[in-house]
């Protein structure tokens, strides 16, 4: 379990930032077709947190109501998917890639929504691997310098 007292995260551009006080709970991935399309991906990776422990420290997420009882939060300025929350649930599910340190979460416990799982998911680990630097010149890497928000809170940004 994660025992750090405070965890931070936010969107790619930094317009929306959050802090989580206390413990992160259950972590899981979801393959359902709604998570696939909302996240533009194989599905979602989420960690549950008591909603009362989440503070939006900069900006506010926009929401899309993907069903009658679910809000999905995202940054309207850069699109980063940030959370999923079912009405009445004391927990909010945070998109783990939006955490400043996505390795610092509790162990993943299961995969849900496997009725929509894409066949290619299980083989991803074994695909040939390249680093970002392998296929680029130093000049290319300079041009690719990240303009995304740093993985920590900032006083002012950009």
């Amino acid at each position, binding site marked *: 379990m994660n025992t750090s007292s405070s965890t931070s995260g936010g969107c790619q551009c930094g317009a929306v930032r959050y802090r989580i006080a206390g413990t992160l709970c259950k972590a899981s991935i979801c393959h359902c077709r709604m998570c696939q399309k909302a996240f533009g991906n194989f599905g979602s990776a989420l960690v549950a947190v008591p909603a009362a422990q989440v503070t939006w420290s900069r900006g506010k997420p926009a929401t899309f109501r993907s069903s009658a009882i679910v809000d999905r939060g995202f940054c309207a300025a850069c699109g980063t*998917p940030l959370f999923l929350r079912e009405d009445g649930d004391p927990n909010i599910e945070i998109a783990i890639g939006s955490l400043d340190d996505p390795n610092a979460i509790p162990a993943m416990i299961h995969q*849900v929504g496997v009725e929509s799982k894409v066949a290619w998911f299980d083989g991803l680990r074994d*695909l040939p691997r390249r680093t970002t630097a392998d296929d680029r010149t130093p000049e290319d890497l300079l041009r690719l310098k990240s303009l995304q928000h740093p993985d920590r809170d900032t006083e002012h940004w950009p």
Partner: protein
Amino acid sequence: MNANPSPATGGCQCGAVRYAIDGPFRNPHICHCRMCQKAFGNYFAAFVGTEKAKFRWTRGKPGVFRSSDVVERRFCRDCGTPLSFAYDHSPYIAVAIGSLDDPACVTPQHQFGIESRLQAFATLHELPGTRTEDTIPAETMEKLKSRQHPDADRPSS
């Protein structure tokens, strides 16, 4: 190479932005780099490319965030779905595979950005799995009925 439907269509969750790809797919891959992780709020991004000349936005206009000086990442401003990635100087554009109407129609062939690969990634496929209806009561399933755009083009309402 994957044989792909032509046109291959896709779009965001809410349906405000839709696109079509008229040419062949190229370079299906996943990217673990920290910028793709944060842009997608996920372990990695999954992309498939095509020529910019063979790609068209067919409904709505996506938002854009320039994540570096030479890169455009496009997304839906109404629901957030990450949609595309393109270098300014490249003849190609890559779309987010999960935004395709049929994300199973293309199989990633490489992993890039391996320097940022998250620790848990290698064992995700070994986790015990459940179907949505296995864990959610029938009456809740009714309330969870999808409001997302169908996985096909529809006339504008």
